[in-house]
């Protein structure tokens, strides 16, 4: 349940550390974003001397949420934090490594590169 003002951890090595969600991409007045949704975010904290800087506005895809993800087979999964991966306009990740577990839903949503880089897909 990510909404504007939500702080997100960054799950890759693109250079950003902490993001704040500004807007959810999708139909009109969408209230919350969950795993697999693309979100516009501003960088609140960045690793020094990398391509991404603080207060830059970028697009990210959400990969982990503290709010449970319900699957159609009845499984309910909950992660420990809210995390996102920085992407470009096509949907390819900007970083080269992904940290932490990723939800399997991203594969269906055509984020195959992220899924292939992930250390664990759950």
């Amino acid at each position: 349940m990510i909404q504007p003002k939500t702080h997100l951890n960054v799950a890759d090595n693109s250079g950003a550390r902490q993001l704040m969600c500004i807007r959810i991409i999708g139909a009109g007045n969408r209230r919350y974003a969950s795993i697999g949704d693309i979100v516009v975010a501003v960088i609140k904290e960045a690793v020094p001397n990398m391509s991404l800087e603080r207060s830059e506005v970028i697009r990210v895809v959400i990969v982990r949420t503290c709010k449970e993800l319900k699957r159609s087979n009845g499984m309910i999964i909950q992660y420990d934090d809210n995390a996102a991966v920085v992407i470009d306009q096509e949907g390819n990740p900007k970083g080269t490594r992904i940290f932490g577990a990723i939800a399997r839903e991203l594969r269906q949503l055509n984020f195959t590169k992220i899924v292939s880089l992930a250390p664990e897909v759950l």
Partner: protein
Amino acid sequence: MRLEKCWFCSSTVYPGHGIQFVRNDAKIFRFCRSKCHKNFKMKRNPRKVKWTKAYRRVHGKDMTQDSTFEFERKRNKPERYDRNLAENVLKAIPKIDKIRVTREERHHKNRSLLESSIMYIVWICGTLVSSPPPHEKHGRRCFAIRTSRRLPHKDIRPHV
């Protein structure tokens, strides 16, 4: 489909039940119901919570080692489907369950025998090294002895 064990109470989690929590180091904690999940969030140690299987095993209430547990161990190698194997396994499961249940009942019976015999020994030792008699403050003279005979009425008592 897989039947998992609840991380907290060790009961089986059937499909469609419970919540899985994935920690940031990718360790998965499965819970059978919100009771176990809430206890986990409270950071309770299952080995100290009386109604869990972990507590019972640690404190010797349930048996810990038995050959019937070997059948239920998680094997990470998938088995190629073989109809005969599947049939034999399905036939064997209730038999193994029955054996395990009888062995557990025997364990419980032995445990209660052991505990009651310990209590008996403590009682005997307790009475040998007995506590002081109830009216000790007056010294030995007041050691009350109850007799079944009543003292005779004072008119009938012999004159002394």
